[in-house]
């Protein structure tokens, strides 16, 4: 596949690995956080970790919109389906996330809720048109990448004056989360691993551009490299970070130049600006309340805002007390340090945000990395 396969080449990977090993100074430790679950996934699935020198450590960030979706928001969606008998549509990723009372959207479906998986927000509009006598709600999740398509369907619903369609908006913003990780008071509680730089979002940056990361470089003196999600992209970005550290720079660099610009997608930004506005605060699973970190639907589109249309109390649901996600997300613990890992907490029954989707650090280690905990035996 053009523009995909070339970025997964194993020979080049070995070459890049050797270059990283050669340039990483043996006397120091490099701790880089990849914000995005997409990078976490690539690291685990392609076994990139095996190609990095021991002193280059990747810390998995909170960048998976499914992982950070708080349980209380899923509870709201389930209540819409079970109590308001709405058709609730969402992306496949969300269906299995555990909610309160032993439910998940999938289990609520088994109890009679009309829950439907969609591939695109446009499918939800079609479902609403096909079911004029039912309320149809789209549980919209995602970072800046996923927000513009949601904005488009809200505008389309307004144009069609579709009365039975609405959106439960859970869109969140990446820069605020990165800032939070660097500044939140919890840092004191857990201690913190000095982060030497960030692997920056790929697809989020297509929309917002690379400019929004510049304050991190300047204010916090942290290098940021916007990186594609293919494994060679990630390796090159790591090399770029190593080089910034080695030369004492703290800049925003763009490895993903084939798609990301400094300005981002102006058309998409404009649509989002019309439909959404900043929330004062929003709860992130694993991080807690983060100020100005999420979007809500503007009053002009209130008729399509499920939170305005339905009485939907939001109840905060804490994760398991022993869940170490907070520390893991800041790099001070690893999944295997958590008592619940692979016992009470598995991808089938996640207890914390890091286990929810295959992009969470605990889930990625469970699914792809557990073999690292034992010696490899290839022959008897």
């Amino acid at each position, binding site marked *: 596949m053009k523009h*995909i396969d070339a970025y997964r080449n194993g020979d080049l990977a070995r070459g890049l690995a050797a270059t990283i090993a050669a340039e990483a100074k043996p006397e120091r430790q490099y701790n880089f956080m990849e914000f995005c679950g997409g990078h976490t996934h690539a690291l685990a699935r392609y076994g990139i970790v095996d190609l990095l020198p021991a002193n280059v450590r990747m810390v998995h960030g909170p960048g998976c919109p499914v992982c950070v979706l708080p349980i209380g928001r899923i509870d709201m969606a389930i209540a819409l389906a079970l109590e308001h008998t709405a058709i609730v549509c969402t992306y496949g990723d969300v269906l299995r996330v555990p909610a309160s009372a032993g439910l998940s959207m999938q289990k609520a479906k088994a109890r009679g809720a009309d829950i439907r998986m969609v591939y695109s927000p446009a499918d939800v509009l079609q479902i609403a048109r096909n079911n004029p006598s039912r309320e149809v709600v789209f549980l919209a999740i995602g970072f800046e990448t996923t927000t513009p398509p949601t904005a488009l369907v809200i505008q389309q619903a307004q144009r069609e004056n579709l009365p039975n369609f609405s959106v439960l908006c859970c869109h969140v913003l990446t820069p605020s989360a990165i800032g939070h990780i660097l500044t939140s008071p919890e840092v004191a509680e857990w201690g913190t691993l000095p982060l030497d730089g960030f692997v920056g979002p790929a697809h989020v940056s297509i929309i917002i551009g690379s400019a929004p990361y510049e304050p991190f470089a300047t204010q916090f003196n942290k290098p940021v490299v916007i990186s594609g999600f293919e494994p060679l992209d990630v390796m090159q970005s790591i090399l770029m970070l190593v080089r910034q550290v080695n030369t004492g720079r703290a800049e925003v660099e763009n490895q993903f130049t084939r798609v990301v610009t400094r300005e981002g997608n102006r058309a998409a930004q404009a649509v989002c600006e019309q439909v959404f506005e900043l929330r004062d605060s929003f709860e992130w699973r694993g991080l807690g309340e983060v100020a100005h970190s999420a979007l809500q639907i503007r009053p002009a589109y209130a008729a399509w805002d499920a939170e305005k249309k339905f009485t939907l109390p939001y109840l905060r649901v804490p994760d398991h007390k022993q869940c170490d996600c907070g520390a893991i997300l800041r790099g001070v613990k690893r999944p295997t340090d958590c008592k619940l890992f692979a016992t009470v907490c598995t991808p089938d029954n996640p207890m914390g945000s890091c286990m929810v989707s295959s992009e969470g650090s605990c889930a990625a280690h469970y699914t792809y*990395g557990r073999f690292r905990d034992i010696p490899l035996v290839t022959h008897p």
Partner: protein
Amino acid sequence: MNTTAKASYQRPLDFKRGRIDMNHGAGGRQAAQLIEELFVQALDNPYLRQGNDGALLDIPAGHRLVMATDAHVISPLFFPGGDIGSLSVHGTLNDVAMLGARPLYLSASFVLEEGFALADLQRIVASMAHASREAGVPVVTGDTKVVERGKGDGVYISTTGIGVVPLDCHISGANAKPGDVVLLSGSIGEHGMAVLSQRESLAFGTTLVSDSAALHTLVAAMLAAAPNGAVRTLRDPTRGGLATTLNEITRQSAVGMHLQEDAIAVLPQVAGACELLGLDPLYIANEGKLVAVVDAPHAASVLAAMQAHPLGHAASQIGVVTADPHHFVQMSTRFGGRRVVDWLSGEPLPRIC
């Protein structure tokens, strides 16, 4: 008064516009008519024609019996490369074949939904008949029930197959041993992605067809290529895909496996569709592929026999069996790293992240 009563007359089934109604499942005249004018007609063979509620069958002496069953509930019913009729033949025959057996007979039980078009049912039964004749395995007995509209999905078909295996043939998922070789008969994920390509809301354009096929002749060729006992395990990686099937085997045999990703063939269309939907071909269903665990000394000759068979021409060695108390299936990636290949958890759902 007439001296001759008129014989009981029944208007023939309307295969153009007719639909299944509750009467077709009630066990009376209409049920008998459906059996005669559709099932017996299409699947015609001497056993079915015995006309009893079961079939009397001959089996060769000096064998053990293998019995396997599968319920088929696929949606959509018709998909590129097959339909629920052919699938219900292949799916069960293959489970019989995976124990090294020669499949001899099939039974079929239908759960029809009220309102199902007779034309569609006829097409499905014809396809089943074709698959059964092509495989040389007749459907010898059956049953039909009708459920109310909204309690079915057109048609569900449960098939059971029986076959025979020589007394000295012992193939099982429990037989894999460290040092054995893992063979795969061809590229993966075609059935699952062909079906998914037809799902409303996911629909994508593709010339991809299901790999649905009866594997018993391939199995026979493989068994002929090595002494008894050399082929330890055979299994068709259906629901759950290759990944889950290999995990089943490592758990059942209490071993581990180490795979080479670059030995596992994936057609570009399958790869493309999987990328698009966020799926992993390792977890996508196949219906015409098999995995074999073979002792190392005979792996080459078994692999050669596979490659010489039309259903195994793209066969490859994909890994080796290891000693591993955790029964992990591990894989060296094409990229040069290593990962676990875990069981499928839940359904393989299209993802956005």
